[in-house]
């Protein structure tokens, strides 16, 4: 395993479409649920332990080589909002393109053929990590970190928040990220014996509901 490959994959500049998504932050800002740095920290913590944990476990399982088609169905089942499913598939397709150009692998080609309009992003992320020679922990770290770094950078743009404060929020979450990744990988390892039901299924209802409303706004800065 090359640890440097993890830096390439986790880099916020990795060209896989994330910059156009706020992870629900735009809707939360408009609803007055994020007004400053303290709210941002709460929002990110909530997202990390719900959507972040689920994404990390899916990515971990895909990195372990579990059947991506089953994992994709598990991701669908864990994503009630059609708007969020669509966003996850779009991002999965964009990541797939970047992944196939950076770490060409037959497994990625096969998944691209299976899902020409995109599989769920965490599943693609896990397979990308695998193609890059990374393991389930690394894949889970990428997914968990993305679940909070997206909203943090989006909020800097939306509220003109001090970027140092937003980065500090992410840094303070690091110990919790470690815990989430540990739980996620433990669940991912159980999939081989127990099937995808071993994966966590904790959702954040407000994120799902707000995403549906957000998708219908005529004017918005972010795609989700």
């Amino acid at each position, binding site marked *: 395993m090359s640890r440097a490959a993890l830096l390439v994959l986790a880099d916020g*500049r990795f*060209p*896989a*479409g*994330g*910059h*156009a*998504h*706020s992870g629900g932050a735009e809707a939360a800002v408009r609803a007055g649920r994020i007004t400053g740095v303290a709210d941002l920290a709460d929002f990110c913590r909530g997202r990390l332990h719900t959507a972040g944990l689920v994404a990390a476990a899916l990515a971990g399982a895909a990195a372990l080589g579990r059947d991506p088609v089953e994992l994709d169905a598990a991701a669908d089942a864990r994503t009630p909002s059609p708007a969020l499913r669509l966003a996850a598939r*779009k991002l999965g*397709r*964009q*990541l797939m*393109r*970047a992944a*196939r*150009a950076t770490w*060409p692998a037959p497994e990625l*080609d096969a998944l*691209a*053929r299976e899902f*020409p309009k995109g599989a769920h992003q965490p599943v693609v992320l896990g397979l990308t990590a695998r193609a890059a020679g990374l393991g389930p922990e690394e894949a889970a770290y990428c997914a968990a970190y993305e679940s909070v770094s997206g909203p943090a950078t*989006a909020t800097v*743009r939306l509220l003109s928040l001090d970027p140092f404060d937003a980065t500090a929020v992410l840094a303070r979450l690091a110990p919790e990220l470690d815990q989430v990744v540990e739980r996620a990988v433990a669940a991912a390892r159980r999939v081989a014996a127990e099937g995808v039901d071993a994966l966590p299924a904790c959702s954040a209802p407000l994120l799902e509901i707000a995403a549906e409303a957000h998708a219908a706004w*005529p*004017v*918005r*800065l*972010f*795609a989700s």
Partner: protein
Amino acid sequence: MHLDHSHPATPAVSADAHRPDGTRRAVRIGLGGPVGSGKTATVAALCRALRDELSLAVVTNDIYTREDAEFLLREAVLPPERITAVETGACPHTAIRDDISANLEAVEDLEDAVGPLDLILLESGGDNLTATFSKGLVDAQIFVIDVAGGDDIPRKGGPGVTTADLLVVNKTDLAPYVGSDLARMAADAKAARGELPVVFQSLRGESGVAEVAGWVRQRHAAWTAQA
């Protein structure tokens, strides 16, 4: 690209000149430039000028609305299925340069839905003078400025003005009203761009987009000739 030869059914990666089935894909031309300079108006005029001779489609990259796409739909310059809007997360320059994945998806989907296409025009939302298109996304780019945005823009330069394959100075009809010195703009553009072409146009004038349409025709012919 090598990936696609072994797996003809998988979509192309980035700047591949061929479609998955091996045929040459549409030539892709980007239009960038400051807010309100006339990018959408130029795209609309190009569609009207070229739609009878070329199979074409448009991708727009708005900052926070679908206004450009909606304008093109309202004007009915092309059937709706040939116009796609990409969402840019408040950063059109990122979507056309640093992370082109959403635009490549849009291009691919257009080829799938209404292709084979000869020409795809990609408009960037009005941004700044440094916004340029990635070579992974477009084969040539047009930078559109206007005389009303200040006649010192060609002198200020920036990657758009200095490196675009074609510089269009639009709204020459307004020059007398805003006191812009067209001769000076032409001289400054020449100094900044050397041999690269510059077109002065007014979409309100008689010849309209004709010169730019001619340039686009040439690019398309050159692209097809490379096959």
